[in-house]
């Protein structure tokens, strides 16, 4: 295949990737968008085969590896529970990172195959692009692995901090730059291996001080990194599909991190420099428990909701933990049969990952036009009889509106307290992710339902019939 023709096809594949992301602007177009993405990938792979034009044994091996990898991927995709999406994304990221490292290594070992010069005499620009690609890839890999382990609970979610951490990171950062410089000057391969090794360690060191609950921001950030790595390698391979995709993925990760930080009312550096979240969760528990709390059972809750004319459901992280989404849908169906108007209110950072709650509700067959975002629904609480808050906490905390001292002050919250009564389904009075006590638990119009979200919802359902 001529270079011109393949360049055109790579361009087409890049454009198809743009259309894939564009499709996600609404659920109706999103499936078509995904097909665009798949088409783009098929085109890119096919064109590469035709350009290399080597249809011998190697070709068959490539196919075999594609199939093995594909089967593993497909297996994971079908088996993974929807609640494990954050882990899955982290895991997949680590693979992209490692793949980037491997490609960079091959290019370093066999530059002729990529038109980059010969061993020991690689073009300067290519060498720089390649080292950056390899370093960023390695950081993405080890960082994502740590994120994955923390999310899976295979490693303590607590931030691991030690003295001189920032100093260590800084000096390693400088040493990476020095290594790249030496590598470009001498083309000695040991510098390259050392560079990759140190980058692995950087990824590790960067992520361990960050609390488990902050992982989603980290994942998005790593996503962004992996995009820039891909773009870097795209320059090396002179491939526009990779350049376009790298820029898309890079922007996407950066924007998602920004949205999350904004929604949590924290600065990006506050997250990355670590140590928040997980530690505080335990500290602020002690002094409060004496205030009076009204607590109820499933029967009370069922009575309240059956006689309501409108109910708004506010799901949070606890719903995901308890996997309560299916039970919740059934409860809502029963309420609707009783003539109650029900809708769902989703806070932008409810759960642990952007769009987390929406996916879970969609999985439980909740139509997406019954699910509303904060701005759409926040005025409705004033006219609503019952707010059913299931496993959510921070996203309802009115302290964000009243106390300028609070760490979440200024973060937008759902005004559940404006509804006639509020039901809180959670297992205890302990705080949520932000580690702050929630004043709503002690209010007149609040009824606490202390139980696992799924069990409680199922019991309410029983009491509704």
């Amino acid at each position, binding site marked *: 295949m001529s270079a011109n023709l393949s360049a055109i096809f790579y361009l087409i594949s890049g454009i198809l990737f743009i259309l894939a992301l564009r499709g996600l602007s609404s659920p109706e177009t*999103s499936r078509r968008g995904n097909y665009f993405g798949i088409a783009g990938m098929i085109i890119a792979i096919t064109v590469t085969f035709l350009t290399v034009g080597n249809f011998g044994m190697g070709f068959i091996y490539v196919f075999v590896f594609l199939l093995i990898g594909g089967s593993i991927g497909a297996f994971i995709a079908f088996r993974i529970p929807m609640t494990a999406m954050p882990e899955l994304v982290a895991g997949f990221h680590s693979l992209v990172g490692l793949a980037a490292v491997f*490609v960079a290594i091959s290019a370093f070992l066999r530059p002729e195959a990529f038109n980059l010069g010969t061993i020991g005499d690689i073009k300067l620009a290519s060498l720089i692009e390649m080292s950056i690609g390899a370093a960023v890839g390695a950081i993405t890999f080890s960082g994502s692995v740590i994120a994955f382990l923390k999310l899976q609970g295979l490693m303590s979610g607590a931030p691991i901090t030690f003295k001189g951490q920032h100093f260590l990171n800084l000096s390693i950062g400088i040493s990476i730059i020095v290594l790249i410089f030496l590598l470009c000057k001498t083309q000695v391969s040991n510098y390259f291996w050392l560079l990759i090794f140190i980058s692995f360690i950087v990824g590790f060191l960067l992520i361990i001080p960050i609390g488990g609950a902050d992982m989603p921001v980290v994942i998005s950030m790593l996503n962004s990194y992996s995009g820039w790595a891909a773009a870097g390698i795209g320059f090396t*391979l002179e491939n526009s599909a990779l350049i376009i995709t790298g820029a*898309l993925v890079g*922007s996407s990760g950066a924007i998602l991190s920004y949205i999350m930080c904004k929604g949590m009312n924290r600065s990006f550096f506050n997250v990355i420099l670590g140590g928040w979240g997980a530690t505080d969760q335990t500290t602020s528990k002690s002094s409060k428990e004496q205030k009076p709390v009204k607590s109820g059972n499933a029967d009370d809750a069922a009575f309240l909701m059956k006689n309501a004319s409108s109910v708004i459901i506010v799901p949070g992280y606890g719903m995901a933990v308890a996997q309560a989404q299916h039970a919740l849908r059934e409860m809502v169906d029963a309420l609707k049969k009783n003539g109650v108007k029900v809708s769902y209110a989703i806070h932008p950072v409810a759960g642990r990952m*952007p769009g987390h709650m929406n996916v879970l509700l969609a999985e439980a067959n909740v139509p997406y*036009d019954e699910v509303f975002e904060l701005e759409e629904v926040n005025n409705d609480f004033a006219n609503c009889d019952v707010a059913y808050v299931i496993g959510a906490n921070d996203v309802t905390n009115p302290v964000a509106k009243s106390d300028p001292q609070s760490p979440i002050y200024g973060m937008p919250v759902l005004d559940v307290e404006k509804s006639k009564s509020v039901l809180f389904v959670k297992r205890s009075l302990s705080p949520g992710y932000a580690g702050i006590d929630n004043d709503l638990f002690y209010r007149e119009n609040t009824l606490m339902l202390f139980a696992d979200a799924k069990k409680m919802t199922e019991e309410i359902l029983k009491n509704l019939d």
Partner: protein
Amino acid sequence: MEIDPFIFRLSIFILSIFVGYYVVWSVTPSLHTPLMSVTNAISSVIVVGAIIAALASSSEKIFETANIFGFLAILLAAINIFGGFLVTQRMLQMYKKKKK
């Protein structure tokens, strides 16, 4: 008067960042999770480089070190491609409108 292709690639890169910025901001918040998984999948176009690496043969032997890294990269990228697109598809399939 020939312009270095690098400058063209730079132009493509910069314009793509603009496109990425706008395209991602226009994604509806309820689809942010699928966005993460699909960007995962598409960033695996890096498989293109892996294939070149795997099939590059300066000698007769297929499995030189460089090739082996290529094949490993293909494996990893393939997991991501299939896994990423399929899990996205699975999620998107679940987003349904109210039946009327």
